[in-house]
């Protein structure tokens, strides 16, 4: 087999893997702190992509420049979700919060479907669109390259924020033992709200990048959400570093495996990997 093709597959896998990682980091943060699996995570991604698309279509703002606005918007969506959907059911069985996010997911998707229709849309005149870098026979799509670099940087900033800042310490303490965190003077409901906001902002950033090279439609989040559940479980629930590495792994398996076995089986391969890892290590590759 040609080495160039293999390298091309690895690079493509890495580029999409970094985006998967950031989506999964948002999900794993919320899980790690609150033990809630946010089923609306994919719909947050879709909201981010649609917001970027609408800003481009109606106001002419390039997705590269609308990114900070999208991140802020999704942070707010996260806060609002916590306040209106999660907080009222905190303290009850965890299944209730999970089902509430499931309901929210259906709600968001159908509202978007109602107002914007089921059509696939694409941004093809942005600053990055259609550009590529070629060297040594390898081709890198510029939108994907910029997105991957952006996602890695944001993941790293989130990691630093969680591991080094005062808020990050409070967040980790709350995740480990909520009652004791309260005794330390930590307003745990505020930590929960900000965690939800931060998790949504992560997926918002990923959506803001993704819109540069991916179609936008109301169900776009579904596949990404399912993949990010797999990534979170592979990486170990609540483990940011684990989600980052597992995201890359899934990107590589999807691309390289898809090439050898056939693109229609690329998700099958990801799920086979998931089943193997979970049966050998139920806590994931990097779980506690």
């Amino acid at each position, binding site marked *: 087999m040609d080495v160039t093709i293999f390298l091309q597959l690895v690079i493509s896998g890495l580029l999409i893997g970094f985006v998967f990682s950031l989506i999964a980091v948002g999900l794993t943060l919320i899980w790690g702190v609150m033990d809630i699996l946010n089923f609306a995570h994919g719909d947050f991604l879709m909201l981010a992509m649609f917001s970027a698309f609408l800003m481009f279509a109606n106001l002419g703002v390039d997705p590269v420049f609308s990114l900070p606005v999208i991140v802020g918007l999704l942070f707010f969506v996260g806060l609002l979700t916590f306040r209106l959907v999660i907080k009222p059911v905190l303290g009850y069985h965890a299944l209730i919060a999970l089902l509430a996010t499931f309901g929210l997911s259906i709600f968001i998707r159908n509202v978007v479907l109602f107002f914007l229709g089921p059509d696939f849309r694409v941004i093809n005149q942005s600053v990055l669109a259609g550009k590529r870098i070629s060297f040594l026979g390898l081709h890198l799509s510029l939108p994907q390259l910029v997105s991957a670099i952006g996602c890695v940087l944001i993941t790293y900033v989130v990691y630093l924020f969680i591991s080094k800042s005062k808020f990050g310490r409070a967040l980790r303490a709350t995740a*480990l033992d909520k009652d004791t965190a309260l005794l330390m003077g930590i307003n745990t409901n505020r930590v929960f709200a900000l965690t939800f906001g931060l998790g949504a902002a992560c997926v918002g950033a990923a959506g803001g990048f993704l819109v540069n090279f991916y179609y936008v439609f109301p169900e776009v989040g579904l596949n990404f959400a399912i993949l990010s559940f797999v990534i979170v479980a592979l990486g170990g629930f609540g483990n940011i570093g684990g989600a980052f590495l597992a995201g890359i792994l899934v990107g590589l398996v999807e691309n390289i495996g898809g090439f050898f076995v056939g693109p229609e089986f690329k998700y099958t391969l990801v799920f086979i990997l998931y089943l193997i890892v979970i049966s050998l290590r139920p806590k994931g590759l990097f779980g506690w």
Partner: protein
Amino acid sequence: MLKVNDISVRYDLISVLDNVSFLVEEGQFVAIVGANSAGKTTILKTLSALVSAFQGTIEFFNERIDHLPPYEIAAKGISHVPEGRRIFDKLTIKENLLVGAHVRDDQQDVLETLEEMYALFPILKQRQTQKGETLSGGERQQLAIARGLMAKPRLLMLDEPSLGLSPILSNKVIHTCEEIRRKGTTILIVEQKVTEVLKLVDRGYVLQRGQIIMEGKGEELLESDLIRKAYLGL
């Protein structure tokens, strides 16, 4: 500084505390002693608002605090070292200590307090980069107390700090409390090790089945017939 008036607590319909009242003056070392399940832990949990009383009031420096959430009570200067230490296992020793100072904004002063804690408990300095889960029982208790002190509390509440420790270690811990008091922190301790604690405290309360049945100076209580019979077997 702390005035507890007639608090009563029920878990479901079972009465756990029944009209409990007591006082802690500034600078004092006060103990609440009693057997297992007398309600000692519940008293501290009620003061921290982890449990709510259905009757009674709690005043701290003449201000009602019984309606506040736990994190605001901590911010008022009440530090609660809970039963079983409750160390954050996956955080390092240093991070555990810094979480203890969450209510403080003066980062420079926090680092000074950190050094003070390292001086008081040298083992914590040696192990500062290790995870909490790697500590032994005695070390965990030292960390829990140091973490409580990191907030520079006006009142330090300790829930059975000697529990699960060897007699030598538990004596050491209780004497450390005395040292902390000498440095100016008011302490409210609940303990089963009646003799060791009552020897050291300014004031003691005896709790039995959710009621305070006796109070007085530590030494006086030790000499009382009730304590001698019920707790010392004399």
